[in-house]
């Protein structure tokens, strides 16, 4: 079976005054209709990897890849027009923070129906019905009220659900979720994850889940890529995370406090090993 998304040797370079800076340095992965987690610290290039798939890197950033293919279509050769046809409709993206990603001066209903009316040419009534259904799908209890609300009137969890609903209306084949739950409380987090989980199962959608939270990803995804300084240092099945071999992955796991732990100093992350110098070279 050909994978939904195939990426080989992806590089993202930013030209700066002090010379080129490589944010992503030769990342390769492929994705079927499954949940792939990308984990790393800030600056590891995980967000840039996600954005590259949609070619959402602005100059002075440049994307290069040997292969970047989505469902048979070469994303590197696609024109801006073709990319626009893919974005949203076939590949959706949920951003991290609803505070910055929703339009603050437009109510939720208008934002949800904008795409339906412009892209799909639906009438006002049909678009509204579809938007309401999408809000119900992400378990918003009073969708009528939320439709009329402005983003600042919603809590973080609500805002995040609205963004997920918005991305799911066009029924994409692939959803890229960039830290979709890190602004949320743990209990709300669990709800949002189960919504995403249901969508992967019911619709057979592919999911790239970008997060800094190793524990969360291990529970939620099928496979995990661990990134450090723009490179994938380890790829493993999520259930094997506790048996991770790479010192960086182990370090990330060990530096987290545990309930009932011994309260001694937490082990720091040792970045001096051979792997670290190799990763930078």
């Amino acid at each position, binding site marked *: 079976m050909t994978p939904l998304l195939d990426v080989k040797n992806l590089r993202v370079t930013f030209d700066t005054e002090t010379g080129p800076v490589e944010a992503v340095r030769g990342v390769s992965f492929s994705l079927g209709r499954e949940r792939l987690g990308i984990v790393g610290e800030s600056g590891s290039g995980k967000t840039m990897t996600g954005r590259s798939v949609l070619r959402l890197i602005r100059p002075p950033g440049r994307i290069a890849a040997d292969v970047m293919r989505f469902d048979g279509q070469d994303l590197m050769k696609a024109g801006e027009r073709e990319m626009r046809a893919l974005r949203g409709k076939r590949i959706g993206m949920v951003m991290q923070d609803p505070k910055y990603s929703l339009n603050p001066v437009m109510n939720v209903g208008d934002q949800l129906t904008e795409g339906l009316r412009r892209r799909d040419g639906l009438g006002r009534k049909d678009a509204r019905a579809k938007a309401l259904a999408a809000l119900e799908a992400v378990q918003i209890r009073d969708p009528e009220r939320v439709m009329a609300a402005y983003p600042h009137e919603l809590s973080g969890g609500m805002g995040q659900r609205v963004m997920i609903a918005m991305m799911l209306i066009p029924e994409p084949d692939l959803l890229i979720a960039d830290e979709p739950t890190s602004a949320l409380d*743990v209990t709300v987090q669990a709800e949002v994850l189960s919504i995403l989980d249901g969508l992967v199962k019911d619709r057979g959608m592919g999911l790239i889940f970008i997060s800094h939270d190793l524990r969360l990803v*291990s*529970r939620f995804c099928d496979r995990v890529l661990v990134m450090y300084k723009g490179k994938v240092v380890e790829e493993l099945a999520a259930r094997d*995370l506790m048996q991770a071999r790479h010192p960086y992955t182990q370090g990330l796991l060990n*530096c*987290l*406090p545990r*309930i009932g732990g011994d309260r001694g100093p*937490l082990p*720091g992350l040792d970045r001096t090993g051979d792997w670290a110098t190799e990763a930078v070279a």
Partner: protein
Amino acid sequence: MSLIEIEKLSVTFQAQGREVRAVQDVSFKVEARESYGLVGESGSGKSTILRAICGMAPVSAGAIRLDGQPLNAGRGFARQVQMVFQDPYASLHPRHTIDRTLSEPLAIHGIAESDRRVVKALTDVGLPASFRFRYPHQLSGGQRQRVAIARALMLEPKILLLDEPTSALDASVQAEVLNLLAALREERGLTFLMVSHDLAVIDHMCDRVLVMQHGRAVEELARADLANARMKTDYARSLFEASADRLLEANA
């Protein structure tokens, strides 16, 4: 006598005829050199309690006592209690050098030897003295949070109020900052009142924890009760079970 006593505290915000009761009838005590945690979801009122202690929230009922004395605003208070905020990107003045940020409390309180104290404060939090004349934007998030901790300690307070001090940081940087806080607490005999949404962080740092929901105290747990899942209320249990830390174990 407890060092911090919160008795039947209520905080009510009033705006445009609407009342928001952010904290309702919350009581707890923190002993000297103890670390006490407040945990709950956003909007549960945990940060508001810290702000109330600093006089930055409208207390509508109840009392806050430090060392048995009612709160007195002003300079004396600043020498007793200091706060470290969540977001080190927002809590340092972007156009003040680290030197100016750290020496300002000394100037206000007329404390001499500013040079020596600033350098010592930096080295105490594990930063090189050469950082003194940098601006916040030249530092990483973890380094900034170290500066914020150094600033809080400039006046040698007994009590630190910590409002989600590591939630904006990467896991490895969080570990470093938590270790720093624990070492400083040991060295200086500090009392911590710490707010976090992460039960594992609270458990690592605190002796007792108060679980809050919708502005009310739900349950107080000693550390052993938390570790052994001996909670009485469903809400405290659901928080415990949703903690990412637990998820990993369930998975392993």
